[in-house]
């Protein structure tokens, strides 16, 4: 199949961008994701595939370079970490409004403000509830391994072009920095200019004789038209909710107590589950892979099978837990546990929280 390598999550994401046939990466350095642009610059993808890599003057400029290139039909990716992602929000709102495809990654660090450079999952609200201004959604993929850091770049581009919307790969400092074995997928050739012109008639590739010119914009001063555009966007998001939910159930067949987690917290919850099972507690994990769309129905279905309680485990003061509560409201007890501000919780802490807040609570 592919090629086996030992890589950091950030490097796997960068390598996957080249292999996914990306046309360009525009980015700005920030810890803990600077390896993405460092890897790309060292790898010279312009020689390997013709891919453009450019270090922008800011995250603001980088996301607007993405906007321009995506609007011109190209496969574009950027990445950053929390404070830099905040800077990109204006551009992401424009990308969502103008219905452009792109992939971007947030290797989350602790906040608020400049915060810390240690891992965190405190950008869940920003990722799933909007982030920038206006009524928009983006598909959010949450990798829990270096393997998924690579695979989700490929999947992300497919989803981004299928729905013409931004796709966020939401990882954190743990996944970005740790090294694991990764089975790299076989390279996908970049589309030729002719293929892009034929495949994406909406893209600004230069006006063709006899064809309508293309305009990329998120503006319409006619509010009735803007309402129609918003309805169209909402219909698309409902379609995404119906078709693109991804999650994983681990040890849930007989589970009475379920950890709900994504990303590195899901890895920690896995160890906590092993510890729980040794103590005779029937524990399982509901691992979220898409944070939007959220697996609401699937969580309800699991709850109805006899789950007594859910513990939302996330490296934040409690963000995802709100969606868990909305999903299983009235069916079972829901509590939150998480260290935050850059502290990574231990499996023992997570199990203790389950015992105290759910089982004994």
């Amino acid at each position, binding site marked *: 199949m592919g090629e086996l390598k030992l890589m950091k999550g950030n490097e796997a994401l960068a390598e996957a961008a080249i292999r996914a046939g990306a046309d360009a990466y*525009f980015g700005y350095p920030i810890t803990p994701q600077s390896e993405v642009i460092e890897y790309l610059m060292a790898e010279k993808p312009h020689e390997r595939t013709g891919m453009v890599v450019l270090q922008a003057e800011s995250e603001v400029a980088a996301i607007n370079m993405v*906007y321009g290139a995506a*609007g*011109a039909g190209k496969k574009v990716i950027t990445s950053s970490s929390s404070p830099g992602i905040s800077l990109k929000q204006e551009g992401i709102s424009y990308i969502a409004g103008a219905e452009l495809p792109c992939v971007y990654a947030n290797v989350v660090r602790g906040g608020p403000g400049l915060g810390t450079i240690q891992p965190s999952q405190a950008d869940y609200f920003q990722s799933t509830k909007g982030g920038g201004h206006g009524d928009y959604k983006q598909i959010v993929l949450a990798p829990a391994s270096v393997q998924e850091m690579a695979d989700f770049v490929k999947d992300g581009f497919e989803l981004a072009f299928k729905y013409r919307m931004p796709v966020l790969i939401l990882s954190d400092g743990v996944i970005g920095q740790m090294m694991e074995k990764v089975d790299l997928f076989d390279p996908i050739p970049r589309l030729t200019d002719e293929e892009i012109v034929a495949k994406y008639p909406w893209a600004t590739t230069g006006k063709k004789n006899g064809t309508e010119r293309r305009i*990329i914009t998120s503006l319409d001063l006619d509010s009735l038209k803007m309402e129609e555009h918003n309805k169209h966007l909402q219909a698309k998001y409902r379609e995404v909710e119906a078709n693109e939910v991804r999650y994983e159930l681990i040890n849930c067949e007989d589970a009475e107590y379920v950890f709900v987690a994504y990303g590195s917290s899901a890895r920690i919850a896995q160890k906590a589950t092993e510890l729980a099972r040794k103590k005779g507690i029937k524990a399982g994990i509901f691992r979220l892979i898409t944070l939007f769309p959220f697996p609401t129905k699937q969580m309800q279905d699991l709850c109805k099978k006899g789950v007594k309680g859910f513990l939302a485990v996330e490296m934040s003061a409690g963000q995802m837990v709100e969606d868990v509560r909305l999903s299983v409201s009235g069916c079972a007890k829901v509590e939150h546990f998480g260290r935050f501000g850059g502290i990574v919780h231990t499996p023992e802490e997570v199990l203790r929280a389950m015992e105290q807040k759910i089982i004994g609570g």
Partner: protein
Amino acid sequence: MSMFEEIVKPENLVYEKTRLMTDKALSYCPGCGHGTAHRLIMEVIEELGMEESTIGVAPVGCSVLAYEFMNIDMTQAAHGRAPAVATGIKRVWPNKIVFTYQGDGDLAAIGTAETIHACNRGEKIVIIFINNGIYGMTGGQMAPTTLPGMKSSTSPYGRDVEMMGNPLKITELIAQLPGTYFVTRQAVHTPAAVRKAKKAIRKAFENQRDNKPGLSFVEVVSNCNSGWKMTPNDSNKWMEDNMFPYYPMGDIKVDGQLVK
């Protein structure tokens, strides 16, 4: 046959609207220079046969709707980000012709970083910079290029440079950067100025077509009769008397060499 039909014949045609301007009525105030600047750019693109290879970038400001009037592929950018958007397009389509059209607030205030860095990287794009020393779209607020003592709705007693800083000569500033290849300042308020401005715009687009090393930057000092609260004629006179001494006309950098 009516007299109109007798006169309007192809052999009598001395001037024609470029087909690269749409028929949509311009949203600009009567007397404003934007319409003329639009037309010159579109004429140049038509004359150079670049219609099918050009992608324009519209800013935020009075010309936010430039894409409604310029009959080519266009992208509308966030406020100040046009040079970054144009960079993104040009880097992935190096054989296309890419230009931005920006006002003074867009280019010299909120987008200063994007402007300077696109110039410094020597992006092979054209920037058309319309400088009328005021925020027209939002109702006449102070711009980075508002002259000392000049009144606006946010400098109602005149721009006090002690408090509000000095007008930014961004064109002179970016001319110092090795990444700029052609930097010029023009106007479009008289037939003679229009002819010179068109020549400059043409040179800018030819530079990009010929893959010259660097960015071509054309400032157009323009009036804003509504924002300045003057008649069009008075505003043009005021512009000559007050704007031109601060923002002198002519080439600043030609073929990569400073000439002023």
